[in-house]
């Protein structure tokens, strides 16, 4: 017995099947992307954690985080294969004069840690974001609070949009041409700061403008109607409320500054540097020194040394530390935003 077809009987099966299949194709595309991203992150996390963590207390391999890179020496000694960092190897040879001429395979940067690179990256991020935020927020304040639409403003906006599309390597070339050569700053923190700052400027400006737009007009009108000047209004009644938004969106910029290699390759980064950034004789030298940086270090260890079991340690370890650092920066900023949100809500 067939049931009476209702007025709202379902559509033909075939069409429904096609529809469901199509939806599944879209779903598959989405999850394929997530899968690919996940695969990259997971591989690095798993392999890198062997470097970064250890099974006994304190569980974190502090020496990797706090030491400078060294060459790794691998040699046969009394029937055993030994692996030693540069300093240890020299000490070993002093203790065992017989080992003076032992034949050792060596791999640069494969022993020790990556502390100078971490420090360098943090300094680069700190400096360039300070510059970018100062300039970017000011520019956004002008565009959103002062400027009236006109040809000049449209031109500025066009410039910002176009600046956002300039490849990072071109920023690197530009920084090299202007700061390193023309201004004679050489390969230095300062050159790197400005190059990176200009690179993220469009991100910061756009983000700040969005945040400023989100502050209700009533705050401005109310303040102006009480006889506040424009600047008083902005400083007391607009900027404080836009700040959380500005900081949040700047996360995007921070991640980019920390992650980019191309702009610092010829402006700020050294392949290896023995001194730490604060080991300078005069304060002025601080700004004019090149630094090691994590992304550049990854580039160096992944392209300039062979891949094998001995070098893997530092390669994956550096990549994981770098990923964690980027994630931490983003996380801190998000927490900061929530804290500020709690204080100001409207």
């Amino acid at each position: 017995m067939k049931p009476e077809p209702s007025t709202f009987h379902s559509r033909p099966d075939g069409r429904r099947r096609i529809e469901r299949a199509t939806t599944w194709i879209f779903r598959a595309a989405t999850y394929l992307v997530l899968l690919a991203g996940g695969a990259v992150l997971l591989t690095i996390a798993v392999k890198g954690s062997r470097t970064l963590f250890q099974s006994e207390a304190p569980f974190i391999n502090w020496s990797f985080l706090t030491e400078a890179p060294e060459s790794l020496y691998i040699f046969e000694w009394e029937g055993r294969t030994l692996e030693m960092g540069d300093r240890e190897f020299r000490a070993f040879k002093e203790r065992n004069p017989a080992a003076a001429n032992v034949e050792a395979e060596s791999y640069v940067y494969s022993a020790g840690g990556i502390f100078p690179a971490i420090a360098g990256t943090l300094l680069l991020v700190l400096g360039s974001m300070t510059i970018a935020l100062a300039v970017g927020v000011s520019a956004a304040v002008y565009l959103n609070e002062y400027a009236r639409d006109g040809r000049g403003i449209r031109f500025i906006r066009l410039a910002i949009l176009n600046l956002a599309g300039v490849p990072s390597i071109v920023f690197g070339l530009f920084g090299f041409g202007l700061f390193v050569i023309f201004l004679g700053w050489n390969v230095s923190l300062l050159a790197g700061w400005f190059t990176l700052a200009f690179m993220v400027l469009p991100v910061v400006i756009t983000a700040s403008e969005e945040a400023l737009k989100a502050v209700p007009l009533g705050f401005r009108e109310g303040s102006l109607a009480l006889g506040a000047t424009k600047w008083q209004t902005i400083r007391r009644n607009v900027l404080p409320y836009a700040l959380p938004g500005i900081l949040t969106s700047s996360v995007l910029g921070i991640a980019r500054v920390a992650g980019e290699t191309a702009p610092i390759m010829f402006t700020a980064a050294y392949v290896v540097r023995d001194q730490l950034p604060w080991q300078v004789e005069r304060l002025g030298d601080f700004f004019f020194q090149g630094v090691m940086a994590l992304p550049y270090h990854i580039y160096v260890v992944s392209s300039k040394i062979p891949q094998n079991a001995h070098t893997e340690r530092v390669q994956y370890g550096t990549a994981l530390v770098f990923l964690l650092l980027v994630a931490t920066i983003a996380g801190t900023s998000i927490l900061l935003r929530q804290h500020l949100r709690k204080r100001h809500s409207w």
Partner: protein
Amino acid sequence: MVIADPPLMDSSAPELAGTPPPPAPAERSVVAQIEHLDFFYGTTQALKDVTLDLESRKVTAFIGPSGCGKSTLLRCLNRMNDLIEGARVAGGTVRIHGTNIYDRTVDVIEVRKRVGMVFQKSNPFPKSIYENITYGLRLHGRRDKSRLDAIVEQALRGAALWDEVKDRLHQSGLGLSGGQQQRLCIARAIAVEPEIILMDEPCSALDPVATAKIEELIQELRARFTIVIVTHNMQQAARVSDRTAFFYLGSLVEYADTRDIFTNPAKPQTEAYVSGRFG
């Protein structure tokens, strides 16, 4: 009847300390004079040759259908229109105590200190009640704590809000109800002791009870301030104002004592509007 409660004006006014009964026409003292004002937004003319005097310590209501220019005129009085792109005064003057506030030598900041404003949508700052009130004073350099405390109390009492908020002065102004927020805004405005207070449909977002409180407050404030109120609600205009100006399509149609406007309008358009036939 259109006039809902005419005795309110007369009965409440004498109660206010030292406020004289409505003065005779000859004794009117003028605070602000608007003369032949033409105003444009870009190429659209929003005000056409408006001439009107505001009298001291009176409540003046601007009424008229949407887009008639009443809010524009209100915002001309403290130059809030400066903020709008493309807005400009094309002709005429706005004088306050004889000074044309659109004169080039005039500092717009000073104008706004003397001409306070309350907005349609209550806009307390996301700060504490105390900070909201002292905001304007601090801007102008008042730092003396005990003096500020006194002014806060005075302003809040003046806005009939003191009793409701005196225990939570340091909580956010955003925690108040809609009507309280609007009274906070009024308190904020009177704390800087302006001469004129402009109110742009201050009750349009409030329920009837809150509206009644604000109207009551306006009656009290009349003793100390010159008040200009824009309203859509004709009963409200009739209840609270001494003088009423009716605008239509950017022109001032009629300006007279409120009682006359509502009972005996001179122009047929006014009559049509107040009797609810259009608008």
